[in-house]
């Protein structure tokens, strides 16, 4: 009947499948199945790989709750993720706005590409370069002292701010680009309409532009927050003795000791927390949009 015709071409998994299947099959083979194996391991006492006898246990998950250490670090990591995400928004959103709404013509495309390019350099090399900038007697220190009349000592290296700077540097392009994508699509006449109704530039920004660019903001925030919470390399190298985070202890379980079950359990707890945060945040953000 007519209704069937309607469903057949307006909606339905069947029409979506040919487009969806390749991507999700790939993800299944290369990620979901391997991770399922990890889920399985996370409930074991020992890895079968090591040839030792093993049994099922919830102990690895219980371990998270039995030691304050993990919770402390998880909270620290979440805070880190939040701070980095906020900085990326603060720095990246205006840039995306300028890129989308102020610059015109060819230069815009060029800058769009230039913003991503730093990503193509090796992460570790980038961090070493930051070390060079941030340390005492480094570039920042020298440059500031050359300009300023009085002598100051800047040694940001091996500190929380250094971690933030390094992470923001690594992740801010995500924010710029995802926001640019949605900002660029906003019809200028909506901005004009807002202003003709007496809204200042700032009010238009708050009430019209930000809500309309929310999909980009949310996508950018998710792409930044999620990996930052699990990051360990940047904190370790730039943070010095303060650079211990949740990602570090997971890494240790894999690298320093052969306790994959615990490491896996810790990462799935992380995943669960992150997904819960995204799930709670997304309707709130959607409503704002």
């Amino acid at each position: 009947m007519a209704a069937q015709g309607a469903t057949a071409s307006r909606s339905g998994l069947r029409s979506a499948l040919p487009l969806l299947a390749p991507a999700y099959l790939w993800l299944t083979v290369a990620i979901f199945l391997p991770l399922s194996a990890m889920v399985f391991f996370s409930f074991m006492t020992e890895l079968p790989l090591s040839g030792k006898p093993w049994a099922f246990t919830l102990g690895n998950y219980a371990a998270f709750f039995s030691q304050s250490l993990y919770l402390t670090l998880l909270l620290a990591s979440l805070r880190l993720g939040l701070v980095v995400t906020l900085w990326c928004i603060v720095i990246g959103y205006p840039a995306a706005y300028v890129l989308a709404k102020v610059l015109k013509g060819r230069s815009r495309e060029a800058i769009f590409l230039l913003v991503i390019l730093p990503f193509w350099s090796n992460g570790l090399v980038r961090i070493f370069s930051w070390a060079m900038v941030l340390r005492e007697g480094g570039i920042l220190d020298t440059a500031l002292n050359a300009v300023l009349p009085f002598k100051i000592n800047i040694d940001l290296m091996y500190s929380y701010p250094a971690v933030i700077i390094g992470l923001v540097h690594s992740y801010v392009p995500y924010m710029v680009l995802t926001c640019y994508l949605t900002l660029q699509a906003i019809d200028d006449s909506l901005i004009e309409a807002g202003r003709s109704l007496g809204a200042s530039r700032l009010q238009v920004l708050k009430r019209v532009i930000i809500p309309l660019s929310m999909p980009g903001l949310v996508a950018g925030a998710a792409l930044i927050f999620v990996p930052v919470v699990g990051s360990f390399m940047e904190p370790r190298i730039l943070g010095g003795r303060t650079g211990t985070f949740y990602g570090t202890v997971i890494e240790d379980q894999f690298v320093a000791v052969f306790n994959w079950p615990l490491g896996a359990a810790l990462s799935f707890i992380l995943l669960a927390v992150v997904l819960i945060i995204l799930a709670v945040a997304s309707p709130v953000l959607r409503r704002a949009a």
Partner: protein
Amino acid sequence: MAGVQVSNVSRSFGAHKALDDVSIDFADGGFYALLGPSGSGKTTLLRQVAGFDFPDSGRISIGGESVERVPVEKRRIGMVFQNYALFPNMSVADNVAFGLSVRGEAKAVIASEVQRALDLVQLGKLGGRRPHQLSGGQRQRVALARAIVTKPRVLLLDEPLGALDKALRVDMQIELKRIQREIGITTIFVTHDQEEALTMSDRIGILRDGRLVQEGPPEEIYDQPKSEFAATFLGDANIFRGESTGNGIKLPDGTAIAAGAGAKLAAGAKASCAVRPERIRIATDVEAQDAANANMLKGQVSKRIFAGNNSTYFVERGGQTLKVIVQNTGIDRLAEGQDVVLRWAPESTVLIATS
């Protein structure tokens, strides 16, 4: 106190002059209709007044003050955009509330004002919908409600009623006029509907290729067009081209057409006469009737087009098709092919100098 003065404003896009030395004085509290062909610069002019775009040269003042440095939001204007520009992320009610809420009005005040405005545009019940759930006409009404709810001092309307059916349109016209009178708001109104322009406005300006061609009160513009363009653009006109005889013209075939008493033009110059189709009486009787002082032409009906309250006859005469409008009073239809006589008074003839 918020008349709008546009003085010698020009604005080009690349090589294209969208506005070319336009000066108009929009009287305080007046209702001004802007007419002009598509692409003649109407929207561009509104955008200068609103402050979205800036003249390359010339000055704009509102309420006697130059607004060159006044940002849009401080100009206290209301605008209805040609494409509506509704905020897709807000409900209908929130769209309308926007102007009040950025001003920081109290919630209760906003709610009641918004409801009033929505009722006004007959959308009282659709406040909760999103713009994409509305029909074209409904969107336009939301845009209108949004623009007037803040009681701006200047209202800029870019075809605010274009998507409305006639009945609603008339309702909205009446409402718009009422609001406009009540709050004495200076209104600039772009429309393609001539009847709307003629019936609603105090003054009309006609733009063409970025230039102001003629402006004045509706009847004056209609009755005394200064150019062939003005004559044919606003309303319909039969144009006769020939040589001036002082207060009339002589067509190439020798026929003389007399204009009204006031008309004066150097004899011998090229000139045209414009005659409104409704001013011409069409008759089948060839004998002279009130022949005194009347222009008369013979011709043959080639077509009749029914248009509701009137019909248009197309009459062929010496290679020219003349239009005659006849009110549909319910009697006498002329058949196609019939020989007819057209008569009109010299007072109904406008003499126009051509270059």
